[in-house]
């Protein structure tokens, strides 16, 4: 898969809500383990910029959006189920 390309991700969180904090930690682990720096991550606090999140079609927090490369993907939850996250992001070892 797109190994060489940079993965663009956005993580929508609700400040320091437990699930949001867990999602941040889980994503950091995944990135560290699989992506080796080939990624751009933007973390958006929905409480700070709710209208932007709304415009992006975010419904619940935490949500992870894969912007590029295509296909785009959306993952809802605290990302504790690692294998499904990896699969959804199209990351292969």
């Amino acid at each position, binding site marked *: 898969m797109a190994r060489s390309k940079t993965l663009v991700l956005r993580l929508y*969180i*609700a400040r320091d809500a437990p699930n949001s904090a867990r999602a941040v930690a889980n994503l950091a682990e995944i990135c560290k383990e699989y992506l080796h720096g080939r990624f751009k991550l933007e973390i958006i606090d929905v409480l700070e910029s*709710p209208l932007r999140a709304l415009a992006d079609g975010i419904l*619940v927090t935490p949500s992870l959006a894969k912007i590029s490369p295509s296909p785009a993907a959306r993952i809802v*939850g605290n990302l504790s189920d690692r294998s499904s996250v990896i699969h959804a992001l199209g990351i292969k070892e």
Partner: protein
Amino acid sequence: MSHGGLPRGRTTLLKGGPGCGKTVFALQSLVNAVRLRRETGLFVAFEESTRQIVANAATFDWGLPGLMKRRLFFLEAQLSPDVVHSGEFDLGGMLAMLRAKRDELGARWIVLDGIDVLLTLLHDPAAELREIYRLRDWLAANEMTAIITAKTGTGRAEVINYDFMEFMVDCVVRLERRLEQGVSLHRLQIAKYRGSDFEAGEFPLSFGASGMEVAPPEPPEIRHPASLERVSAGFERLDKMLGGGLFRGSSTLVTGLPGTSKTTLAGKFAEAACERGERTLFVSFDEGAEPIMRNLSSVSIRLRPHLKAGLLRMYSARTESTGAEDHLAKLKSLIRDFRPRCMVIDPLSAIAKAGALDAARAVASRLIYMVKDEGITVFITAINDGDDPSTEATDLQVSTIADTWIHLSYMIRSGERNRALTIIKSRGTWHSNQVRELILGATGPVLADVYTAGGEVLMGTLRWEKEDEERGKTLQRRAAFDHKRRELQVSETDTRARIKALQNDLARQRSELDLYSTDNDARIVSSSEREKELRRIRGGDPLKRNGSRNGA
């Protein structure tokens, strides 16, 4: 029904199974708030897409697209199926977004439609509960008037969560759809309303052009204006039987077996109303307007000109198409739009086919009350199965509500089937107790006297024969009379003649008597003369003899 509407600034929970009208209820409340109070509302659609909801609501006359531009905002809140779930999530972010949106729009109303869809994705009852609490706190903190819809009876084990939800909200409205005898019935019930009195019963619900209609509980007190004005029941003879016609605003029930010309009577009533220039609504069930007008024209009842002139409105419904409630809603909107003064429902009994009898009964009585509230003079027909008036129309139990009850029946005698009309009751007015024969002629329906002979009512040929016989008898009587008179005249002349003869006799006898008297005097004179003469001859004492003779 809830004595004032939904609680402002509080949360209302709408519960119900699939297809029971939760979304419509919620949306309609929102539309009303927007339209009537110029408030702004937010509709969060978890279940259906905005496009779907708007398309579904297009059948109602809400002008939704127009409202959406200004005061009614939809928020797409469906998770697309290809969203991957990984671990727990919460509504914190969503609520933050909603608050932002609310602040942006200044919305006072919020509808969360199908929130259960989202919560189910948590796959954890405890988490669902937590999020519901979060939602409650958020709604309370933001003082929004909220409507939350949630499904019940979907067979999910987690349903208990939504039962719990009932405790946290201020008002719970249960919606239900059930099938009764093959017709779906919608019901609404207020299960809870904090701080307000409410009607706790279950009320029928129907969907019309203006959206959802709840059958209001019938007011315990009946207030109908009572008019003394009479309107024609269609033709003079019937009016006479009713002591001058029907009261304006009264209800008339016509019952009878199929083919007893109920529709003809109804048509006559409608025609008479139109001829008075009154707007008339003719509602027929299971028979089209065209065939009715054609059939009525065969007995000289002409409705088409009135239809063209806009005085008459014909509405034909297929009873099985919708439930009785929906028929009622439709009629209601027709009445509202057309504002008729007179109305025909032919036959009302048909709505009994549209679902369960209980429901149809309630609808029938509500329909009559509604019509009477409007002051409309209504003419209702109903088919009854038996020919016994005591069982007729009791299917719908309309007969007790109707002011006037005309019964049509058949009398089968000597190979004929004739129509008979009886007035069973007519409140507050004199009415004929006699049975009349209803004859349908090319010039219209006519009522004829009937004869009773040996306790039997004679109709048709028998009546004609009887009439003929009566005519014969009259002729005979007249002939006999003439004869007798002539006889008497003859005998009078005879008597007069006899009197004349007797008078002649009398005269003759009198003259004879006179004659006799003169003769006698003469004889007396002559005899005394003769005595004198004799004495003179004999030389006796004339004085003494004469004196003793006079003294004797």
